[in-house]
């Protein structure tokens, strides 16, 4: 039952929010009531649905790119130790570049299509994957590595048969964090250039009901991706849970 505890919590929050708006007569340009959001969801359902699909696609492709790039970076840095000292600090520093600052450059370079959005989402999401994968690769016990060397394992075999599976639970931790970022990153990307996604419904800041509806849908996308990653983790690394 504990895993369903969010349902009553959500009901309480929504009820309290609705009560606050109604009792205080808060105008809708300050904050939308849950009922306004519900109405906006229903009235704009066809537009919102197509926008959600656009954002979902950007999010999935960008997230996949982040996983591929994040893992590839971690594998290269792990296998080539001399490169790690040179590149790792730069990767961390890259996270402090405000997306807002480089997004226009990406749009100029890559156009208004999917490409700049994928790059922006991947930039936002790859670091937790890289950092967790690197830590995970290094966390295999030294005794195990030494033993494996005497059991005919080449460094390559040690990586693929020991270090990579050993790191899998940590890589999934990184992938979960990245999943939580991906939806907001997709929104950043849409603001930067041409969209058709949920950002379109957020442009009119005074239509707070519609903005709220888009936010709700965005949250659902983030939750859905997160849940999918958790499910995949349970299927692929069952040993990590049973300890």
């Amino acid at each position, binding site marked *: 039952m504990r895993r369903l505890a969010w349902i009553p919590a959500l009901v309480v929050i929504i009820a309290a929010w609705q009560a606050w708006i109604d009792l205080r007569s808060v105008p809708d340009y300050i904050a939308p009531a849950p009922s306004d959001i519900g109405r906006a969801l229903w009235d704009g359902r066809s537009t919102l649905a197509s926008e959600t699909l656009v954002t979902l696609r950007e999010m999935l492709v960008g997230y996949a790119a982040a996983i591929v790039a994040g893992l590839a970076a971690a594998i290269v840095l792990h296998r080539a130790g001399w490169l790690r000292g040179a590149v790792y600090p730069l990767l961390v520093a890259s996270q402090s570049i405000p997306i807002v600052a480089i997004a226009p450059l990406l749009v100029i370079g890559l156009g208004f299509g999917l490409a700049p959005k994928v790059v922006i989402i991947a930039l936002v999401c790859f670091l937790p994957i890289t950092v967790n994968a690197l830590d995970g690769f290094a966390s295999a016990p030294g005794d195990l590595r030494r*033993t*494996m*060397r*005497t*059991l005919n394992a080449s460094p390559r075999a040690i990586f693929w048969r020991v270090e990579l599976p050993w790191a899998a639970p940590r890589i999934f931790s990184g992938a979960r964090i990245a999943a939580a970022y991906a939806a907001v990153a997709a929104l950043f990307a849409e603001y930067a250039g041409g969209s058709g996604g949920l950002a379109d419904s957020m442009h009119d800041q005074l239509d707070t009901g519609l903005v709220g509806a888009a936010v709700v849908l965005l949250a659902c996308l983030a939750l859905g991706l997160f849940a999918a990653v958790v499910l995949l983790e349970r299927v692929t690394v069952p040993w990590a849970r*049973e300890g």
Partner: protein
Amino acid sequence: MAGAAISIVDVSHGYDDLQVLSGVSLEVPAGGRLAVIGPSGCGKSTLLSLVAGLEQPVAGRIAVGGEEPASERLARCALMPQDDLLLPWRSALDNAALPLVNAGVSRRDARDAARPLFARFGLAGFEEAPPRRLSGGMRQRVAFLRTLLAGKGVLLLDEPFASLDALTREELQGWLVDALEQEPRSAIMVTHDVDEALRTCPRIAVLSGRPGRIVLVDATAGLTRGDVLEALRS
């Protein structure tokens, strides 16, 4: 396979300003079994790493099967660590077969090669069990089979039963002697348990506290627990 002879001549080793081993000389004939016993931190595990070619000694010479280069020693030695260190995502059989897979054998052939050993060494029926479903004693057996299946002439056993309860440990000591008689290899077994050393190996070497020096090398047949303890205290 009868195993390869091990020759350790006047070996000293250390890290930075910490000396771990001092002037250690030992011989193990092909197919021989030597127990190495000593207080904690006397360099027993380091000695195994040096023999296996995982590290190079600061001074002295080590030869396995007559070969001195580290890569040649590594090619002839298999290490069994104190904790079984089985891979939790592989079944017992796939863990035992891993050294064959590492050597380029297909997974199917490697499993076929490992399966008869499971039957012979009391693990029948547990081939597909993940390590977490096995008792501590069974995990050590799988770890030992994994070491055997590396196909090396020398087994280096680093306190293989230290993490087991007393009863299981005693049972596995008898099991190990049987196994090594059926599958003869040269072996060095590091232990801190006097009875285990006397029970499992025909010869024993006693190391002093750090830096480890040899204080006694003898056949175990004529030795008592008291003799070994006295050598350990000296």
